């Protein structure tokens, strides 16, 4: 019994890990309809900023997180102003090509600046090790991840998705010309949303890099997972991303425990089944 509960908890924790990694893309792709694969690169940047701040400048972990959010958000706005904004009207495939090109460039740049090897994270002692909760031995970092992810999800759903701002963003995506003529400062709204999306991606990278390992190939390694979570959840819904991340996380961990011989099949099969069942994602809107 204890082992089932532990496995379940680990599944939830993995689900939140997937959530924090994917939510940045969920914002730009889901809310702004911009296929920004470079979000994975922003995640990597978040990881590297965390490493630099912690290892080289000795800043505490919790202080680093807001720094990561702000810095990556700022970088993503710069990239948005310089490059992305010219591509809002192009089709999905062009955006894919553009952003995958940026991912390639980011990999080479990360190799140049930080070297090709994996980074070392010395996490603070309060966050490593295990804690006893209700008779279960749970990893402290996973407890932290679940808590942080849950707070983030609530904040995003009620602060971004279900608000006036969320509606404004959707209006700009629906019809940018008309939104402008209706008094919405579309440029500002897009830049702001992009900053949020980029900042979240950076935060996701910072929170997951410790568990997943950080090297210049980080974006390519996790791009597929991020895409799966966002698409299964459905475009335009942070709630959907959360549900998808938790479902896939729990299914993956349970699958590995009970049917280890199936390996990654379970998560892939689930993805295919979900997408055939609901081509627009679990909570996605129709065409």
């Amino acid at each position, binding site marked *: 019994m204890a082992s089932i509960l532990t496995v379940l908890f680990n599944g939830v924790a993995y689900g939140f890990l997937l959530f924090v990694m994917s939510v940045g893309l969920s914002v730009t792709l889901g809310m702004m309809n911009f296929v920004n694969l470079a979000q994975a690169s922003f995640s990597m940047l978040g990881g590297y900023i965390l490493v630099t701040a912690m290892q080289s400048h000795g800043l505490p972990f919790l202080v680093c997180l807001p720094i990561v959010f702000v810095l990556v958000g700022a970088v993503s706005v710069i990239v948005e102003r310089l490059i992305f904004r010219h591509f809002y009207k192009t089709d999905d495939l062009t955006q894919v090509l553009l952003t995958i090109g940026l991912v390639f460039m980011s990999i080479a740049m990360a190799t140049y600046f930080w070297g090709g090897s994996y980074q070392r994270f010395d996490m603070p002692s309060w966050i490593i090790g295990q804690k006893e909760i209700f008779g279960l031995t749970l990893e402290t970092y996973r407890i932290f991840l679940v808590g942080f992810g849950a707070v983030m999800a609530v904040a995003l759903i009620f602060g971004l998705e279900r608000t*006036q701002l969320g*509606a*404004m963003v*959707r*209006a700009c*995506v*629906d*019809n940018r*010309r*008309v*939104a*402008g*003529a*209706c*008094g*919405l*400062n*579309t440029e500002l709204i897009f830049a702001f949303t992009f900053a949020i999306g980029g900042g979240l991606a950076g935060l996701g990278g910072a929170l997951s890099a410790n568990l997943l390992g950080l090297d210049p190939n980080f974006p390519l390694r996790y791009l597929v997972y991020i895409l799966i979570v966002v698409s299964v959840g459905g475009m*335009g819904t942070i709630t959907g991303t959360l549900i998808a991340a938790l479902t896939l996380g729990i299914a993956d961990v349970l699958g590995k425990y009970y049917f280890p011989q199936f390996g990654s099949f379970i998560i892939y099969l689930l993805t295919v089944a979900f997408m055939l069942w609901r081509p627009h994602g679990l909570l996605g*809107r129709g065409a």
Partner: protein
Amino acid sequence: MAHEGTNVLSAHNLSAGYGAAQVLHGIDFNVSRGEMLVVIGRNGVGKTTLLETICGLTTLQGGEIKFNGVNIEKLPPYKRNRLGIGWAPQEREVFPSLTVEENLAIVHRGGKWPLEKLYELFPRLKARRTNYARQLSGGEQQMLAIARALASDPALLLLDEPVEGLAPLVVQEMVAAINLMRTESQMTIIMVEQKHEIALAHSDRCIVLDHGAIVHASKSSTLLADHELLDKLIGVAA
């Protein structure tokens, strides 16, 4: 505020289009406060382009536009809207993935048009306030587009074929609503309309466009009475 007489909007030698393509050639006109001006003409003569030029959605190739005496031709669309230019576009360009209420709320600026008043004007919208705009019927979307334009409390309202595709009864309601807006709040209106009988019957002045230029300007009643001229300008007789 009104410096140049009572002109709310004055366009001088306006040339505009999309990118390099020129659609409008040297357009001159004024609208004064509380007036309703209609723009009529055949398909594709630049009527919609004229409204979009006032909104700032086209490429201005020459000339100037003054709104309440201020030059606005360099301002981006959202700033023009904030100055008081409201636009109800054709082809039902509402925000499909927003609810009716969200469509209004995100652009709402209170003033003369609180939400209750908009719903009073278009009761159908009130009944469907929680529905997504894409679920509305054509006529309801048309109403929503007009309500949305009013929500930003404009001093000048641009209407692009507001009664297109509407049932006769709704057309009457719409015309009544437009008249109400004018009488109650001194709204200035520029309306583009294919159905010239309705347009001319309810407006003060008219201009007729052809090939991007003004070929006629007069009082609406004058043109409405002159069948021969009307036929010549827009080929009414089948």
